[in-house]
């Protein structure tokens, strides 16, 4: 499989008062197209920082991060926002839906930023919600939906602009075990049926082993180990 994403000696340092926090301290990994990768680690290991860098929400201190050959660290803010809306789809632990918008509007929002016409985006959002089993709940606000339903809306939103890779940051962290399994099943199907590359950030080794093709364990901002399941 071709390399979709590659990092080389990626570093992210924060200045906290007089102390320099080395959130990432030289990480070199590569993700292939269609791969299901898990980033495992305790809190503070740097796994979320790495995900934020891949998502283009943050910029590395040094090192390179290439997606399909393009270096994110060299991108302008405008190019980074384009990367966020078309290359990646992000799924958060806390769903991060706009509370004042309906499920449908939340999904259409990301397509709005991509300049998709109203008719087209509402049609696609409807299809996505339908496929997530939320056909009848399109007009509901997030607070009228269960946690699992909210996360399905968030997944629909992440898929709206047909990204190459889905970035899931502890997607089941706020869900009960049964719903967690359902959500993980959705991700697994997206990976298997549609060939979406998925990068899952988790602290749960079982979850990683159960669903991911490959698991990279991080500790103190460096790669501790790598295993294939």
């Amino acid at each position, binding site marked *: 499989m071709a390399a979709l994403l590659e990092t080389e000696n990626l570093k992210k340092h924060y200045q906290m008062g007089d102390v320099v926090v080395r959130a990432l301290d030289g990480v070199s990994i590569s993700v292939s197209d269609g791969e299901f990768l898990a980033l495992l680690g305790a809190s503070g290991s740097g796994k979320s920082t790495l995900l*934020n860098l891949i*998502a283009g*929400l*943050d910029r590395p201190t040094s090192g390179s991060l290439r997606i399909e050959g393009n270096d994110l660290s060299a991108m302008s*803010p*405008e190019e980074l*926002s*384009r990367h*966020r*809306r*078309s290359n990646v789809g*992000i799924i*958060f632990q806390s769903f*991060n*839906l*706009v509370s*004042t918008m309906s499920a449908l509007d939340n999904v259409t*929002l*990301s397509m*709005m*930023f*991509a*300049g998709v*016409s*109203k008719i087209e985006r509402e049609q696609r959002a409807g299809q996505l919600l339908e496929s997530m089993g939320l056909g009848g709940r399109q007009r509901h606000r997030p607070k009228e939906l269960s946690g699992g339903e909210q996360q399905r809306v968030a997944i629909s*939103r*992440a898929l709206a*602009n047909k990204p190459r890779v889905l970035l899931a940051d502890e997607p089941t962290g706020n869900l009960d075990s049964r719903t967690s399994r359902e959500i993980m099943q959705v991700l697994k199907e997206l990976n298997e049926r549609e060939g979406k590359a998925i990068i899952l950030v988790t602290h749960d080794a079982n979850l990683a082993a159960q669903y991911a093709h490959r698991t990279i364990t991080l500790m103190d901002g460096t790669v501790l180990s790598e295993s294939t399941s």
Partner: protein
Amino acid sequence: MITGDTFGLSLRNLRQSKLRTALTTIGVSIGIASLGGMLSLGVGFQDQITGRLMQAGLFDSITVMDPAILGGPGALLAERGGLRGGRGRGATPTPSPKLNDETLKKLAALDNVLEVYPNLRVPVELKIDDFTRTLTASGVPMSSKGQGSFQTFSYGAFFAGDSDASCMLTLDTAKQIAEQNPGSLIGKTATLSYASSVTNTAESLNVPAGLQVQRTETSCRIAGIIERDPGGIPGGGGLTGIMVPMGMAKTMDAQAIVNLQSFLRDPSQAKAYGAVTVKVKQARFTQDVEDKLRGMGFTVFSINDALKGAKTAFIVLDIFLSLIGSIALAVSSLGIVNTMVMSILERTREIGIMKAIGASDNDIRKIFLIEASVIGLMGGFVGVGIGWIVGQAINIGGGIYIRSQGGTPAPLFYFPLWLAAASIAFSIVVSLIAGSYPASRAARLDPIQALRHD
């Protein structure tokens, strides 16, 4: 991102916080109302004064006077005019050339001069039905048709011809004659009586030879009543209560005893006028022609001299009024900044989400700038409305008061369309400026920080 969608998101945000939007809009509208109201006061004031002068047709006319004939007031004016003109600068005063028909022809031949006509004033006794009153009749040339005060007629129309036996009245005069229905005077015949001198040589009538005063009567049909009385402007072509065609006025003037000079005039000498009006082709030539006439030794007066100071005064007045009005607008623009900053604080997480799913900094900035300008637009409209209503209320209230004091009411506030449009545009611009800081603050938000925000 499609512009329509950006608008959609902005409007949605405004609808989300209706109360805050409404309060901020009211704040802006009060600011715009006070600024627009102040300016409309300035414009109204200016309009009252320049409007009167315009109506009098004074911008393109120069009055040439013969101080000797005009007597006391004329000499006084001439002296004042002379301070600016060529005469008062230590040079020994030379008498002005006589203003007779020959001189008039010479003046009419000057560059950029449209026409020259004498200012004829004849004291008459006006008689219509039972009404009798002594007033001054003035001569109006046919070229004044549709100009100045003759743009708006309350009733009737301009004279049909120069030698027509017709006359026009001002509305004030007409109301004195027929309080209830001034319009009924149109078509009626007025009798004008004036004193004329005859040189009596026939001794057969058994009266001593010499000057005699007799009463001469002439009549005219009332053709029109003009609405606006431009008032007596010193030396200017100010109109009088009754106006007759120039041809008729000349006939009357030739016979009438207007003042002591005309009474004692040697009949063998050409008739000289007290003052003549020189109309220039365009108002911008007034100064040139005025200077030329002064150089020829005439005593001249034009409204330009008086207006130079007035123009500066109007600009100062407008600046002063708009400064007062701007205070409220400055406060309300701070209101916009406050509202927007609050709104950004409240929506920090939402902004973070939008950025995470692909909104660019520019998208976010535009959303907030549009919000600000929509507040400005609405505030502008409401403000112009408030300003107009308050202005009208004061106009009406003031009108009632002025009328009760026996004056002629004039609108104090004047809100022309350009002022309304400019106020709304200014409101949007001010709102955009006020919104630019919060908008760029929103655009610069770090998405990771924003997503952690509750």
